């Protein structure tokens, strides 16, 4: 059912590259990919969480410390060796108890804040299919990507390299579904083009509304240009019960420091240098003796 892309076996087209100008979009083309998380069918079994770790050969954290107890949740959250986790929250709603269980990971924003914040050319890339990926060989370990991220996703290893979901770009490029999607026992995860996923999401949304979830909604935050992970939320008016920000967008501060401040900085620093040079050629160094010698 899912649209399979195979062009990646040769190389994936790039849409955005951190701290660099946009690559030529006329070379490679690809469909925008997306994963739909149907919360109404999710049983919170963590098969996706386990499968993710297994596919990526991760050794996820084992929380045995006495002070930390997170109940059904495997731990407090993402970690460099845990690219996704299931959040559990019990919420008493008007219509009764809701056990809000959410798959949480990198959202693969169409307009990725991490990429925007990243100062190192090529360390964060966005393929034309929408997958946002890290290239550790170009990463300088500044952790700006975390500040850029509206979803608090990247986690750093001991060498300050960030880790996160890479949408199983290796599998996807070889015609396989992302590991979490394939594993999901109840088909709460769907994979395909963004277009297909939105159609499917809206179809499922109708079903949900018929079942009485009149506030159900599709979560595809426009503040980041839409996301590669979209969610079907039974209680769409309250995304926060699922741990998702109501208004997700890149902080204006990031735009400020990447945009105007950089420009002003260039002007000021180059200007200062130029000023000093002008002083030198117009007036010359401030030497001793001019005045004194005159006086003398």
């Amino acid at each position, binding site marked *: 059912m899912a649209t399979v892309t195979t062009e990646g076996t040769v190389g994936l087209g790039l849409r955005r590259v951190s701290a660099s100008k946009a690559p030529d979009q006329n070379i490679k083309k690809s469909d925008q990919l997306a994963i739909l998380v149907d919360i109404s*069918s999710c049983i919170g079994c963590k098969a996706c969480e386990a499968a993710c770790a297994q596919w990526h050969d991760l050794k996820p954290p084992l929380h045995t410390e006495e002070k930390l107890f997170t109940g059904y949740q495997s731990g407090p959250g993402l970690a460099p060796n845990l690219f996704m986790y299931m959040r559990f929250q019990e919420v008493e709603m008007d219509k009764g108890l809701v056990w809000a269980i959410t798959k949480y990971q990198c959202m693969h924003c169409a307009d990725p804040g991490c990429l925007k914040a990243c100062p190192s050319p090529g360390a964060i890339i966005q393929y034309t299919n929408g997958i946002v990926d890290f290239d550790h060989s170009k990463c300088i370990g500044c952790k700006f990507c975390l500040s850029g991220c509206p979803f608090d996703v990247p986690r750093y290893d001991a060498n300050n390299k960030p880790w996160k979901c890479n949408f199983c770009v290796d599998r996807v490029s070889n015609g396989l579904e992302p590991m979490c999607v394939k594993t999901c026992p109840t088909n709460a995860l769907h994979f395909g083009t963004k277009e297909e996923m939105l159609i499917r999401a809206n179809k499922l949304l109708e079903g949900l509304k018929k079942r009485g979830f009149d506030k159900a909604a599709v979560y595809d935050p426009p503040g980041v240009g839409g996301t590669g992970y979209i969610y079907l939320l039974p209680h769409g008016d309250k995304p926060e019960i699922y741990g998702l920000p109501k208004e997700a967008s890149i902080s204006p501060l990031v735009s400020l420091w990447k945009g105007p401040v950089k420009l002003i900085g260039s002007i000021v620093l180059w200007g200062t240098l130029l000023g000093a040079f002008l002083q030198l050629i117009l007036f010359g160094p401030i030497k001793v003796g001019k005045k004194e010698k005159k006086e003398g």
Partner: protein
Amino acid sequence: MTNGWNDIKNADLVLVMGGNPAENHPCGFKWAIKARQERGAKIICVDPRFNRTAAVSDIFLQIRPGSDLAFMGGLINYVIQNKKYNEEYIKHFTNAPYIVKDTYSFDPATGLFSGYDPEKRKYDQSLWGYELDEKGMAKKDMTLTHPRCVFQLMKEFYSRYTPEVVEKLTGIPKEKFLEVAKLIAETGAPDKSMTHLYALGWTHHSFGVQLIGSMAILQLLLGNIGVPGGGVNALRGHSNVQGMTDLAGEGRFLPGYLKPPKASEQTLKDHIDANTPKAVDLSMNYWSNYGKFYVSLLKAWFGNAATPENEFAYHYLPKIDKVIAMDEILDRMYRGKMEGMVSIGMNILASNPNVKKISEGLAKLKWLVVMDPFETEMANFWKYVQDPSKVQTEVFLLPSAIFAEKEGSYTNSGRVIKWKYKAAEPPGDAKDEFWVAGQLWNRIKSLYQKEGGKFPDPILNLTWNFKNPYYPTAEEVLHEMNGYALADITDEKGNVVVKKGERVPGFAVLKDDGTTACGMWLYSGVFPQSGNRAKSTDLSDPSGLGVYAGYGYSWPANRRILYNRASADPSGKPWSPKKKYIWWNEAEGKWVGHDVPDIKPDLTPDYGPFIMLPEGRGRLFAAQLVDGPFPEHYEPFESPVENILHPKTPHNPVVKVYKSDLDLLGTPDKFPYVATTYRVVEHFHYWTKHIYGTSALVPKMFIELPEELAKELGIKAGDIVRVSTARGSAEGYALPTKRIKPLVINGKKVYTVGIPIHWGNEGVVKGALANMITPFVWDPNSQTPEFKGFLCKVEKVKA
């Protein structure tokens, strides 16, 4: 399961009660989600906790642990009172019209059926039979009005279970109950079906079999048995628990549900006569072939030593007076009556109730052999006592290969036998069970050859026809299980259907004259001469109903839905075009359809669909159950409330009560809360705590308790709490939750405490053994322990 995993998607209503499939069978539960997505089916979850199944259900009802039968009684009553049953179905496909002997009675005041012997704690079940006519056929009243017909008796019996009584017993508000009852009753329509999914949540009671019986009654009333999307579906535990049950891992059976001889059956004929039922109605009465299966088994096991002269070596089989199931094994062990134990892949210490009793029992063994991939609590039991030098048990711990390291088949819960191939080598010196069986058996055999010993005949004559007797292969064994001809087998016309030495095509050709050998009649047909059908992987599903007849092999005879003849009405036409599955083709004079008909293909529609029963009809009244022909509500052995139906008989009257010094039961004054144990999806029994990946998902043993109770006791999330019962205590992290609410039971506030079981003394992650606290109380029919619903108290140990 009467139906299969894939068939769940054909349901119009999914009732989950006594199970938590989202948690314990997630990949099977997908078909329930599919039913909702594709057919708009509703999912109803009835459970003591708002669990993961409840999280995606349309309706959730919180029930008090141990009160499920009251709920079921209420449903049966609702369906009968509101005439929502499928009348044609129950008239022709069930024993509703049968007249019951007048020696049967039930006294609602005492809660006892007729024939109870309080001394032996047993019923005289012979009092509950049908009235038979001179030909030995059951008398029937097709109008269902005879006061002693099953239908009328049932109607009267369940009339006590009014919605008010249901509320008082279960804590489920009347309106909620009625809302659900209405939805369930609607599936009595011919074009609708309800599937029921259950598991240990129902079997883990001292009345577990009665619970399942009550659902069978409800589903029969609604005409939901034998139809697509229907059935009473036991979601079984381990990967091959179905296989090991079929193969008689339990001592009360021989492979294929044949019976071990009783001491009183001193000849083979005695035994076969006693176990070959006589039809009491138009029935295929398939067990009439009992003798064929039995002799074929004896031929498979004892080969040439099984001759007509020695009753096919009938006396090689041990004869029993009494089934020694797990409860007896553990109790005898504790009483020092067991000398040795061989345990292949089981962790008896961790997984059975009252760990203290088991631990002391193990210490009384002379020797213990444990085979497992990991160092288990059972093998290490002597390490946990104060002075191991006082434990005189000799213990072996043998490293075993695991599923990926050997070839063979598993039978899943839907009865489908599938093949797995070997992918890897076991680590170090770990060995698979084929090798160990070959090695051990040849050693035992040669000891008897050399030294002689007590009754060596069955040992010396046991067939062991393997190329390498020290290392049998899976297909060699499957060959013996499937069965083969010892002489040319001919049909009625004299044509040879199976040549001598060839494997039989199925159990239909088995003989009772010693010309066929078959180690497992029920699986016969899985490995015909043409090849191993467990390996077949044809994914075609022409009907779109998820039948997949070409994938694996489903016993019996590759049928995917049991009793599927019932998917057609008494005249053989499908009940509804929507539920068309098997139907009678008038022109050809045979049954046809999407599946293998579960009846002889040319047997006319007046024969009953329940071919394994002498009635040919489903039993609404089952005299075979030791605790009564109709399921009645009894309280668990530890209950916070009295049994308002019959306070004098609060508990199941035929349950064996063990009375050793460690068989302690608590009372609500000391132990005020109801406790229940269960599993979480991330773990499997006491096994996955040895595995890093699963351990990381839920590393800590926790205790779930209602937020209100936590507040009362001053307990916060993450505090360490101790749950104690009359047997012992277990500690874990407190998880106060909104998902378990206090219930009002007959005016009394009752709290439920939940204890997941998966931790122990060994493994990557450790924690308390939940079975330290569970009671040594067992279902009288199936010997299943009562893990769901016992009494406890909770206290804070450490903040």
